[in-house]
């Protein structure tokens, strides 16, 4: 790292942290030097998506953000998702679908999908594509990643619809009772 002349404080994976940094340091470099190496350096110019993290609920490229821009924000990296022993639902689906070859793009893909699942209620193909359009995979041709994502989204949509449906039936039955 270059001479640290500044400090930056933000919530990283739920923990408040302060780091010494320089004005010119990229958020990606800071994260990786602090040990958060799940976030990958791919192109370094905001094209490939391997460095995707979530800042204040939105997927962003850590390579195109100065670390100083994260001041006071909430940043989440792939380390906040599942672990090797306990992968999260989407990570499990990726494994089951055989969607991981070299694996370099996967942390970014998982983070973009997380932003999608946490922000949207409608998981139509159009919206899902929009959230995933900033992540490149050079191995799989996307097909298996897409299958894994679709399975996860469909299951989540069904689970989300269930309580709502239960509520509606309850309401309509109580109405009927009146």
């Amino acid at each position, binding site marked *: 790292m270059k001479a640290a002349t500044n400090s930056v404080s933000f919530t990283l994976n739920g923990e408040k942290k302060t780091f010494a940094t320089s004005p*010119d340091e990229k958020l990606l470099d800071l994260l990786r030097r602090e040990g958060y190496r799940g976030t990958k350096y791919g192109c370094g110019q*905001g094209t490939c998506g391997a460095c995707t993290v979530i800042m204040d609920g939105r*997927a962003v*490229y850590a390579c*195109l*953000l*100065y670390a100083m821009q994260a*001041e006071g924000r909430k940043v989440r990296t792939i380390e906040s998702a599942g672990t090797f022993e306990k992968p999260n639902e989407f990570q499990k689906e990726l494994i089951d679908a055989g969607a991981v070859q070299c694996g370099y793009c996967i942390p970014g893909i998982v983070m973009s999908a997380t932003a999608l699942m946490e922000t949207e209620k409608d998981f139509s193909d159009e919206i899902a594509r929009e959230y*995933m359009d*900033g992540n490149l995979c050079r191995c799989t041709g996307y097909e298996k990643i897409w299958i894994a994502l679709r399975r996860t989204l469909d299951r989540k949509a069904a689970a989300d619809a269930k309580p709502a449906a239960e509520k509606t039936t309850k309401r309509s039955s109580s109405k009927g009772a009146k």
Partner: protein
Amino acid sequence: MKLCEFIRPEKLSDARNALRKLGPKGMPLAGGTALHFMNTKTPGTAVDITRLGLSYIRQEAGAFVIGAATPLSDIQRYRSPRWSMHEICRRISTHQIRNVSTIGGNICRVFPWADLPVVLLAMNARMMIYTGKKKEDEVGADDFFASQPARRFAGGDLLTAVKIPFLKANHGFGSVKAARNAAAFSLVTVAALLELKDGRIQAARVAAGSAIPFPKRLRSVEAALIGNEAIPEVFRAAAAKATEDAKWCKQEGMSAEYIKDLAEVSLVDALERAAEFARGRTK
């Protein structure tokens, strides 16, 4: 751009004062994505303008007012009956970029491939500029994009908002961005605003960018539209006039001749979309 300092002013006036003092060394930073690609010899100071309350979309006196530091993704998600800005924002770069890039960043320093200047020219948008006075300057798109807007801001003045007039009854808007793939820079971007009356074109604003050195209105195309019926033959004839205003340049291995054809086809598409849009709008 290499940064040697990063400051976070709390007020608009402080940001302007800092930028005035810094001169060419100072650089306002909102999304900051463009800064990473700017080659400057001397390191600069970033003046963070994301904490000044400049990120919003409001409706005021017949116009949508978009704060200068509003991310493109917010503009893309916004919906209202007289609004059509979401279309083009969806076509800009990738999801992650749209989450940080701002409308101000896209138009204050115009890169040849920028899409929003083209759309704002066609929409007749107005830019609000803070010059240190209580009342902000209001500059029309034609004036704002007459030359590189970055020059206007060299003295520390700041864009605060963009006003986009509501689409009135019988008005329609269409834009087309032609690119090699979804995330690529534009090869040609065109936009058209049409006002129809009894199937005839009453008024038109047509603009293009990317395949020409700087975005501009296509006044010969507009002249060929006004007074005529809104039908494909008229659109095709008008699009063919574009060469009178714009000298199409070759792009990414494609010849200038090909780009000219691409631009003309894109213009016809944009005009058809605008006419279709206008026909469906009776209030």
